[in-house]
C-alpha cells in the first residue's frame, strides 16, 4: 500500500524516537486531539517507545464519546416510538444512552441499521417511501461534508422521508475548552490531520498565539505521529510556539474548498453540549433553517429529558486529559467494552477502549 507502508517503516520510526530522546530535556504534556491518533499511538505501541519525558494526553476527539446521552436517548425514542428507520455508524450504535444503546433497541425490535455512509441512508429512504429514515449524523468536521451532501442530495432528488439527527462537533473550540480548563496541563497539541484536510489550518494560528502553545497538524500513521511529536518537542525545547503542518502530503492550508462550501450550505455553527465535558460555545453544527425539513429535531419535535451520566464514570476527566483511563477505579473491572459505563470505552477511537484493547497491562508487557 503505497503512501501507507512508508509511514509504518520501523527504521524511520526508530530514527524519530531517537531524535525525540536526543532533544527532550524535561517533561512535556502533549495532547493528540483526535481519537484516531490515540488509537494509532496505542495500537502501534508508540507510548512505550517514547521517553518518559513525553507524556501523551488523549484529547476529546472521539465524536461518539462526546455525543450527549440525551441525543442517544432521542435516537432510541425515534426508532422505537416513532417507528423510524434509524441509521448510523457502527460505533454509535453501541454507545449507552441513559439506560440502553441503539443496539439494545435493535435487539428489541427497533429498525436500527449500521451504514458506512449517509448517502446510503438517502437511497434507503428513496426505496422505502413509506418509512421515515433518520441518519444519526455524528462526527467532527471530517464527516460533516458527507452528512451535508446527504441533505442536499435528498432535497435534489425530492426524497421527503429523510432527515438527520445532528451531533456535529468542532475541534478548535474543543482545544479552547481544554486550554481554558483550570486543571489543564497541556504544553502542545497535535491537531487532527483529517479535520484539517477538510477545514484547512487557518483556525489554528490564532489558538497558537492566544495560548502561546505549539500546534502541529499531524497524520495517523506511526511515522506521522512520531514526526509530529518530534516537531512539537523541538518547538517546546527551543521555547517556540508556531503552527506547523506535518501532514502536508494531505493537508492544504485552505482545506477542501468544495467540502467547506457543502458544510456552509447546510449547517451553521451553534453551541453544543459535549458528553463528559459540558457546554462549549460555538462548538458544533446544526442544520440551517432553510433545510429544517431535513432536521430530525424539528421534524419530530421530541423532547427528551436530560439524563445523568453514570456517577462512577470519569469520562470527563479522561476526555480533558486530566486522568489516564487506567486511573479510573472501574477501568477493566465494572467498565469493559462489553458493558461500558461511559462512551470512551465503546468507540474504537475512545481512549479507554484503546487502552483496554491494546495496552491494558503495559506494566506487564515483558515479551
Amino acid at each position, binding site marked *: 500500500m503505497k503512501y501507507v507502508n512508508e509511514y509504518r517503516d520501523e527504521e524511520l520510526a526508530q530514527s524519530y524516537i531517537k531524535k525525540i530522546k536526543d532533544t527532550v530535556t524535561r517533561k512535556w504534556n502533549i495532547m493528540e486531539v483526535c481519537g484516531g491518533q490515540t488509537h494509532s499511538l496505542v495500537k502501534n505501541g508508540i507510548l512505550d517507545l517514547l521517553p518518559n519525558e513525553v507524556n501523551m494526553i488523549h484529547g476529546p476527539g472521539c465524536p461518539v464519546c462526546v455525543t450527549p446521552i440525551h441525543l442517544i436517548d432521542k435516537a432510541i425514542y425515534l426508532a422505537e416510538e416513532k417507528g423510524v428507520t434509524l441509521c448510523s455508524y457502527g460505533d454509535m450504535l453501541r454507545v449507552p444512552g441513559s439506560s440502553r444503546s441503539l443496539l439494545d433497541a435493535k435487539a428489541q425490535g427497533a429498525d436500527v441499521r449500521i451504514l458506512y455512509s449517509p448517502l446510503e441512508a438517502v437511497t434507503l429512504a428513496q426505496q422505502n417511501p413509506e418509512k421515515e429514515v433518520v441518519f444519526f449524523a455524528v462526527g467532527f468536521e471530517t464527516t460533516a461534508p458527507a452528512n451535508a451532501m446527504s441533505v442536499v442530495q435528498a432535497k435534489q432528488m425530492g426524497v421527503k422521508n429523510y432527515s438527520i439527527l445532528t451531533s456535529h462537533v468542532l475541534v478548535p473550540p474543543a482545544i479552547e475548552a481544554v486550554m481554558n480548563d483550570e486543571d489543564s496541563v497541556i504544553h502542545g497539541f497535535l491537531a487532527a490531520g483529517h479535520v484539517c484536510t477538510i477545514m484547512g489550518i487557518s483556525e489554528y494560528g490564532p489558538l497558537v498565539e492566544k495560548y502561546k502553545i505549539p500546534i502541529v497538524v499531524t497524520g495517523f500513521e506511526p511515522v506521522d505521529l512520531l514526526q509530529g511529536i518530534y516537531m512539537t518537542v523541538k518547538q517546546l525545547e527551543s521555547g517556540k510556539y508556531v503552527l506547523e503542518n506535518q501532514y502536508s502530503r494531505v493537508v492544504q492550508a485552505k482545506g477542501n474548498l468544495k467540502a467547506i462550501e457543502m458544510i456552509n450550505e447546510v449547517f451553521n455553527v451553534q453551541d453544543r453540549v459535549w458528553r463528559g465535558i459540558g457546554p462549549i460555545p460555538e462548538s458544533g453544527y446544526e442544520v440551517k433553517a432553510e433545510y429544517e425539513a431535513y432536521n430530525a429535531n424539528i421534524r419530530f419535535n421530541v423532547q427528551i429529558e436530560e439524563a445523568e451520566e453514570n456517577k462512577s464514570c470519569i469520562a470527563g476527566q479522561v476526555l480533558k486529559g486530566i486522568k489516564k483511563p487506567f486511573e479510573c477505579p472501574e477501568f477493566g473491572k465494572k467498565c469493559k467494552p462489553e458493558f461500558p459505563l461511559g462512551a470512551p470505552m465503546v468507540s474504537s477511537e475512545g481512549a479507554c477502549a484503546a487502552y483496554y484493547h*491494546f495496552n491494558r497491562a503495559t506494566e506487564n508487557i515483558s515479551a
Partner: protein
Amino acid sequence: MQLSCPMPKMDYDRITLGHGGGGTLTNRLLEQGVFDILGNEILDTHHDGAVFHMNGMMAFSTDSFVVSPIFFPGGDIGELAVNGTVNDLAMCGAKPQYLSLSFIIEEGFLVEDFWRILCSIKDACQRAGVKIVTGDTKVVENGKGDQIFINTSGVGIIEPKAQIRMDRVKAGDVIIVSNVVASHGIAIMSVREGLQFESDILSDTQPLNHVVTAMIDEFGDHIHLLKDPTRGGIASVLNEIVRDINLGIHLDEKQIPIDSQVKGACEILGLDPLYVANEGIFIAIVDARFAEDIVSQLKKNEACEHATIIGQIVPDHPRQVVMRSGIGGKRVVNMLVGEQLPRIC
C-alpha cells in the same frame, strides 16, 4: 459446476411450506434433490438415522451456517457448511468421515438456488473425502428465516499419530499460521448489501483435512495443538489458547501473512485483520525444533503456500497475547469484543 450438475426438471420453482411438511412434497424434494445428488450406501438406506462402523478414538463436532449473502466470492453456504465441520474435525487430529446435513429453508426460496447449494455440497464432500449420511429439511414461513440456514455435524477417527491437546502446549513452542489471514471476512464484506466494493478477493473456504493428515503423518506428536481461526480471527483463537494455559503468546506483526488487497480493504473499512474471519487456514502450535520443517512441508501445498511462523508460546505475561508492532512497539492483542461483522459464516 452447473454443467456437471444439471438441475432435474421439477414442477415447482420455489420452496413452499409443504416441502418441509414431511409429506409427498418433502419426499419429492428429497428424492429428486438431496438423495439423488448426495446419495451413498449409508444415506440410500433412507433409515431414520445413519448406521455405520467406526473403530477407534473418535472426534465429533457440529456447526451452523447462517452466512449472508449465501453466495459470495470464492464459495457459498453449502461449501462452507461442509468445510466448516470437516475442518473442526481435522483440528482435533481426526480424519473426517461422516457428516449430517440439516437445512432450515425460508418459504419462497428458489429451488434453483437450493440445487446450486446441493451441488456445491456434493463437490465439497468429494474434495474433503466425506459422506453425508443423515439429514433433515425444515421450511419456515416467509420472513421467519433468511433464505437458508444449514447445520452440519460430523464424526471422524483420530489419526493414530495425533496427540493434539491443549495440555501439550508448552513454553518455547512455535506458532505457525498456515496461510494468509482475513480473506473470508473481507470477501463477504465486499458483497454485503450497502458495502459493495470491487475487488478480486475470494473467500479462503477449503477443506484442511488432507494437509493436516499429511502434517500429522510426518511430524506426529510434535504437533501440539491445532485451531481454525474462523469467527473472531486469529486474535480470538490465540486468546482462547492463552486463557486455557498459564502461559503467554508473543506475536510478530511483521510476520503475519496477509494479501495486499485484503490489507487495503481492512484499512478502508477500519477493520483489524487479526480479528477478521478465516475459513481455510489453521494455527498450529508445534515443537520449536521442527517448526521450520513443518513450514517447509506446508508450503508445498497450494492451500498453505504462505505458511509462516508468527510467534511463540512464552512463560512471560501469562494469559496475554502481546504483539511486537511493525515499528517495534508492543501491544496487547485482546479477544474480539462484540461483533466485527455479523453472520460471517
